């Protein structure tokens, strides 16, 4: 399939009716959190859109982001990959391997220099280059080379966006995010561990229709990360009434009360989980009775414990406050109860666990 064909031409060739195309546009408007009145504009943009070459690089990652994308229900992954984009390189999804795979990446870069979309998942180690290599090329070298010819970069997942779990203390590989290394290209961060599949698909579709979406201070698209989980949570009325679950099996938990005291990071986490939800809109963690971990926020792994209420300070207060301010959260929330004893308690939670400890536990 040629890359110079428009999406409208491709769909017509495949026998997709105008009705089918408009239905796709309606679903896309919903996906992009755009008002339904925008459907004609989306249809006009998609009609003329040309399939961009997409090069997907995976560095220090767990493949969870790709797993998430391949379960996207936005337009079905087949439509997204084969109709909307030209996925020219992706370790996990491509059939080619070894030299053939690397040749595909190099020729796609050469043919589409300056025009392709570079998608990155995983953080980039800046310590020993040997920590993570592809075909003998270090991650940093491959990223910088591919980024030079990219029209835009999409950092998928919290690892590529903020360093993620590899970046967690003590960060043995010197893991950093894409924005830590590159500042001369448009970069869209799509954090989450993993991100919501339709959000990944939505960002790529937005790039096709209207270009780079409007972003917040952390380079996240406002359409998906503009509101906190807390603001959109159906349990919010319980928070406002002061009705909290105190443990996972008490009456409050069974009655579906607010999970704030069980460590819910919803008030400081910006993502679309509460409305878009997961598994074809079935549910999201809070609906299933588990606090939000805050996985789309920077350094969520080092935020002082998943089951500690936000009012209990972390061991790195300065960083928490900085991120809180950056995302528009009242900084006073976390500062209220600061005291040394609690800081020491939080620090203790990060003691190293030895194999002896594990054996004792068994």
């Amino acid at each position, binding site marked *: 399939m040629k890359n110079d064909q428009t999406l409208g031409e491709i769909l017509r060739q495949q026998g997709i009716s105008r009705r089918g195309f408009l*239905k796709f546009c309606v679903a896309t408007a*919903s*996906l992009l959190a755009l008002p339904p009145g925008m459907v004609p504009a989306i249809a006009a943009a998609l009609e003329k859109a040309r399939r961009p070459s997409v090069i997907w690089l995976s560095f220090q990652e767990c493949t969870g982001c790709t797993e998430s994308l391949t379960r996207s*229900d936005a337009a079905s992954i087949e439509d997204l990959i084969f109709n909307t984009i030209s996925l020219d390189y992706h370790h996990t999804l491509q059939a080619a391997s070894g030299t053939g795979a690397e040749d595909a990446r190099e020729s796609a870069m050469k043919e589409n220099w300056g025009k392709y979309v570079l998608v990155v998942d995983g953080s980039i180690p800046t310590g020993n280059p040997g920590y993570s290599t592809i075909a003998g090329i270090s991650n940093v070298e491959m990223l910088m080379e591919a980024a030079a010819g990219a029209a835009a970069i999409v950092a998928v997942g919290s690892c590529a966006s903020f360093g993620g779990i590899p970046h967690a203390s003590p960060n043995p590989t010197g893991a950093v995010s894409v924005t830590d290394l590159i500042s001369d290209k448009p970069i869209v961060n799509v954090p989450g561990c993993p991100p919501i599949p339709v959000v990944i698909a939505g960002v790529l579709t937005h790039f096709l229709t209207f270009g780079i979406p409007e972003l917040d201070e952390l380079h996240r698209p406002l359409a998906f990360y503009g509101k906190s989980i807390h603001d959109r949570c159906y349990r919010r009325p319980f928070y406002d009434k002061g009705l909290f679950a105190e443990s996972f099996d008490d009456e409050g*938990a069974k*009655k*579906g009360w607010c999970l704030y005291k069980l460590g819910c990071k919803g008030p400081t986490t910006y993502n679309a989980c*509460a409305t878009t939800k997961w598994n074809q809109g079935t549910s999201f963690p809070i609906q299933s009775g588990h606090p939000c971990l805050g996985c789309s926020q920077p350094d969520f792994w080092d935020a002082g414990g998943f089951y500690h209420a936000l009012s209990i300070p972390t061991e790195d207060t300065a960083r928490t406050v900085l991120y809180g301010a950056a995302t528009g959260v009242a900084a006073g929330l976390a500062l209220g109860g600061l005291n040394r004893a609690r800081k020491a308690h939080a620090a203790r939670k990060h003691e190293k666990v030895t194999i002896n400890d594990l054996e004792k536990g068994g």
Partner: protein
Amino acid sequence: MARTTLAEFAIEVGDAGTHNVQPLLHEIRHALAQLLEQGKETVIDLRSIPLAPGEEAAIEQALGEGEVRATLSALGPSDFRETSYPGVWVVTHYNRDDQIVGKFVEVTSAPALLRSQTEDIAAGLQRLEARLTQDGGGRVV
């Protein structure tokens, strides 16, 4: 020893919910009045509103069943259902794997996607002409 069943761990929605059901019904009422007085159509994306488990069903139950139900087959099925309030439709789009990709309340005399589209009419005309030409061995005038 009596074993705890999964049902005992079921999480209740509670009495509070989001309180979004009534306001949404009022929004539909306003939209319906606008349709009647000004001919202005409205589409409400049910996925853009925070709803507690069961509240979407509560909205559908409140709207009830009307006289018309239609199915569209294009990139997966779509279900168009007029509610007991004429002019208020619940439209659900599915993908080819029968997963919901969008759910809307459309306040209109007929959802736009139910109408034949000009491009499809033109393509259909071409196909019919080609068939008649082939069948009759001559040119359709």
